[in-house]
């Protein structure tokens, strides 16, 4: 079969995408989800689930709508699109399930839902319906494949007993389309009210049916153009009308939902946010443009307009699903999710691979029109069987060599360009160069640093260092702390302390002058630094919270009673004074009444710490007095 250059180039691009996706797919299993995806704890569903599964299933809706029209309602004139759309359904669902294998954490347990039931879960319903429906569509397309092999009996059998499978397929489709929407009903507080509704299932079903028909229109036009076939405008127009009817229903449903639940303020009114803009754009693409084009006869007659309307509905459907599954959660998560390159490559690579299979079936099997096998027992005249020559030309021909060349080019390119994600080794902190193990406290003014890399974290008042020590008159910002502390590599925000300080516990020798010398090639600073008065300016007791920053309840009451120590936070300093010795006696503080346990001192409400302090002082006084009486008492004094 002679193919045009356009098809060849398109296929090359699709092969390149598919091969790079294979690399990412392997990398995801070796390195895990953190390396390859940008999903977070607050936004746990990413591109693979929402785009490939939820949006992909919606686009593949066409299968069941057309199957219902042709095989249930017996509308013969749509028979020309029946096989095309059922094939789209089969491949769409197949690729969705395939991409889920990469998305779920433990894909080797994919069979669990068949045996471990939770009928209350919407995902359980989706899983069962989608997997059974995929099997049913597989049965539906078996005749397409078998009729090109010399086994007419099997082909005929599948034709004969098709009806129950068609009915089952249509039923399961309506069920899982609505429950794909119900998935998002489980997060009523987290999903933005523009997309959340208790009617989501109905909205998903109707919008999928409307946009699914429009998708058939645009895909038929694209592939007809590609393979230079005549476009059946009459059938396309009929499908477009059906699409417009469903989309109008969706428009009405959404309006009623907004009116009943009083949500118009999110679209136009006082609660106008960026989500409103996104929603308006989505609604424009999904409903307004297609309905206008499809409902006006003079526009509907033109192929370019039909394609435009179909593409708009297709795009709008994808936007709606992505907004419902990802964008609508941004506000409650207070963060955003932008898919990583690995995610995008795998997501589109799976679609590309699906398209390749689709094009192969289009070229080699009778997809565009159904050979009349119903009335022809042995339809040898209508269909040509596969020959050995054809098989050889398909699988070992020039095409095969071309794909090999693409693979040789694409594989190393992908491996190099994704070395930080899918193809490199992943460490949790590998995204910055040579990063010190730093954790932040809740307000991010303090850093917990493990300077010695021995597992002991100490508090480091970073903000204080920036504010007080990092500011010197007459010095540029680059000449302060930053000169020594943040200098390793371009992306290094916090070089390891160990670069300069060999031992944090030795105050006289904390600075690694050898490193300094090698870095700056001079030792002149050393003498100047040692000659400098490095003592901390004397701090009066009233101002202890100047160094020991307040991180304790009601600190202002205890300003006068502070203790002086340079490096620790107020709380750590206070505790360090007592607890260091207490813990020597009672190391793991397992005994609730032992001296190492907090309760030993903090018996009272923290608001009454003053009383605790008073009690401690009284105790100290008592001890001192006991000491005094001991020395004064002549009877016990040794002679």
């Amino acid at each position, binding site marked *: 079969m002679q193919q045009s250059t356009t098809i060849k180039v398109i296929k090359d691009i699709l092969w390149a995408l598919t091969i790079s996706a294979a690399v990412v797919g392997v990398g995801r299993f070796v390195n895990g989800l953190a390396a390859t995806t940008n999903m977070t*704890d607050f936004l746990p569903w990413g591109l693979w689930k929402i785009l490939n599964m939820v949006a992909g299933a919606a686009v593949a809706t066409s299968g069941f709508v057309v199957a219902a029209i042709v095989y249930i309602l017996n509308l013969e004139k749509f028979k020309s699109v029946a096989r095309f759309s059922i094939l789209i359904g089969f491949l769409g669902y197949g690729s969705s399930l395939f991409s889920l294998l990469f998305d779920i954490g433990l894909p080797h347990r994919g069979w669990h839902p068949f045996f471990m039931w939770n009928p209350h879960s919407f995902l359980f319903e989706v899983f069962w319906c989608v997997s059974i429906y995929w099997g049913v569509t597989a049965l539906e397309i078996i005749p397409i494949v078998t009729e090109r092999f010399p086994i007419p009996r099997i082909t005929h059998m599948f034709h004969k007993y098709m009806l129950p499978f068609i009915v089952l397929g249509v039923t399961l489709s309506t069920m899982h389309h609505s429950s794909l929407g119900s998935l998002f009903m*489980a997060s009523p507080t987290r999903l933005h009210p523009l997309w959340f509704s208790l009617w989501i299932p109905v909205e998903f079903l109707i919008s999928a049916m409307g946009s699914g028909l429009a998708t058939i229109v645009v895909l038929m036009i694209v592939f007809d153009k590609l393979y230079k076939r005549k476009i059946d405008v009459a059938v396309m127009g009929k499908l477009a009308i059906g699409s417009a009817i469903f989309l109008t229903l969706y428009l009405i449903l959404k309006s009623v939902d907004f009116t009943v639940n009083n949500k118009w303020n999110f679209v136009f009114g006082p609660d106008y946010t960026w989500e409103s803009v996104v929603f308006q754009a989505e609604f424009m693409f999904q409903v307004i443009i297609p309905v206008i084009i499809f409902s006006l006869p003079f526009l509907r007659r033109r192929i370019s307009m039909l394609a435009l309307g179909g593409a708009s509905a297709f795009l709008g459907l994808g936007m709606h699903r992505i907004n419902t599954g990802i964008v609508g959660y941004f506000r409650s998560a207070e963060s955003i999710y932008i898919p990583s390159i690995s995610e995008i490559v795998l997501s589109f690579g799976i679609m590309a691979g699906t398209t390749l299979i689709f094009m192969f079936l289009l070229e080699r099997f009778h997809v565009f029109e159904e050979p009349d096998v119903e009335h022809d027992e042995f339809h040898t005249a209508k269909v040509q069987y596969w020959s050995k020559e054809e098989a050889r030309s398909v699988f070992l021909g020039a095409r095969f060599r071309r794909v090999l060349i693409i693979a040789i080019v694409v594989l190393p390119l992908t491996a190099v360009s994704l070395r930080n994600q899918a193809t490199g080794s992943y460490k949790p902190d590998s995204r910055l160069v040579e990063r010190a193990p730093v954790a932040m406290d809740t307000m991010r003014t303090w850093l917990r640093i493990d300077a010695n890399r021995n597992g002991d974290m100490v508090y480091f008042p970073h903000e204080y260092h920036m504010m007080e020590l990092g500011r010197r008159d007459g010095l540029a910002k680059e000449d302060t702390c930053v000169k020594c502390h943040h200098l390793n590599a371009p992306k290094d925000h916090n070089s390891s302390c160990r670069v300069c300080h060999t031992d944090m516990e030795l105050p006289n020798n904390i600075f690694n002058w050898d490193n300094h010398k090698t870095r700056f090639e001079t030792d002149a600073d050393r003498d100047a630094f040692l000659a400098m008065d490095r003592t901390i300016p004397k701090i009066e007791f009233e101002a202890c919270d100047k160094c020991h920053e307040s991180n304790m309840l009601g600190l202002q009451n205890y300003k006068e009673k502070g203790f002086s120590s340079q490096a620790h936070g107020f709380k750590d300093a206070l505790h360090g004074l007592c607890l260091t010795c207490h813990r020597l006696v009672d190391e793991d503080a397992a005994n609730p009444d032992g001296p190492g346990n907090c309760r030993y001192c903090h018996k009272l409400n923290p608001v009454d710490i003053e009383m605790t302090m008073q009690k401690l002082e009284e105790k100290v006084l008592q001890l001192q007095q006991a000491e005094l009486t001991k020395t004064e008492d002549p009877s016990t004094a040794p002679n």
Partner: protein
Amino acid sequence: MSEKKQPVAKGILTDVTKCIGCERCVEGCVRQHKLPADPPAHFKADDGLSAYRYTSIRKIKGKNPGEWRMVRKQCLHCNEPSCAAVCLVSAFDKNSDGSVTYNADKCIGCRYCMLGCPFSNVRYQYDNPLPYVGKCKMNEDCRVPGGMPACVSACPTGATVYGPREELIKEARRRIKENPDRYIDYIYGEHDFGGTSVIYISDVPINDAIDMPSPEKLDAIRVPQLKKHSIPHLLHSWVLVAPIQFFAVAGSLFGIKFLQRRSRLMQERALKKQEKENPTETEV
């Protein structure tokens, strides 16, 4: 007595005004469950919880300027948990002792529990090639000698206490009644989202700290039902739709087919009848 056999639903009461933010509860939890180090990573949220940290302390502004309040964040162990309702392999269980526990042997890693939890307290081990969910347990695994969970046992000030949920609510009421100036007259988690086993009392609003939408917020986003009811309760009626839908759609499709066949038979029969009556007419 039969009361003794059935474990009482227990819970944790956290009094925010008593917390000094020493993070001993976090330390106790880490020691009890032997949790690994929690390195910085891009997938973690900034509230301190992660798959390897089941509880954390969040710092919020107090009543007066310069004052701070510490709020302990953990799984709230809902009475009707969303995570258990949405998990497709029922890996989450609401136990009779009040805890909501995770069964790692069933989990397939779909992360629907994370989407379903209204408080985002379920976290995931994204950095692990074979990842599991990490979440507060509050069951037998947590108990230290003395019968209390490690976090509660470690608290030096009694800010967080463990006990039967009913008694904790009574205790919370008593504290609010005795010090009406000190506390807000609201028990966080008593009725919100169908009630939670972990409840809070505070002197400043802590909705943001524990990610629990306030009643005003619930009104604003048009789901006021959640002030009293849980999310599974909200979705309860939709679960029944699936089987009804199955039989309705399949039935109507077969019905259409049946009617079509019937009408075709009737037509053929009428044609035959016509043929018998006047055979000449059909030939025309």
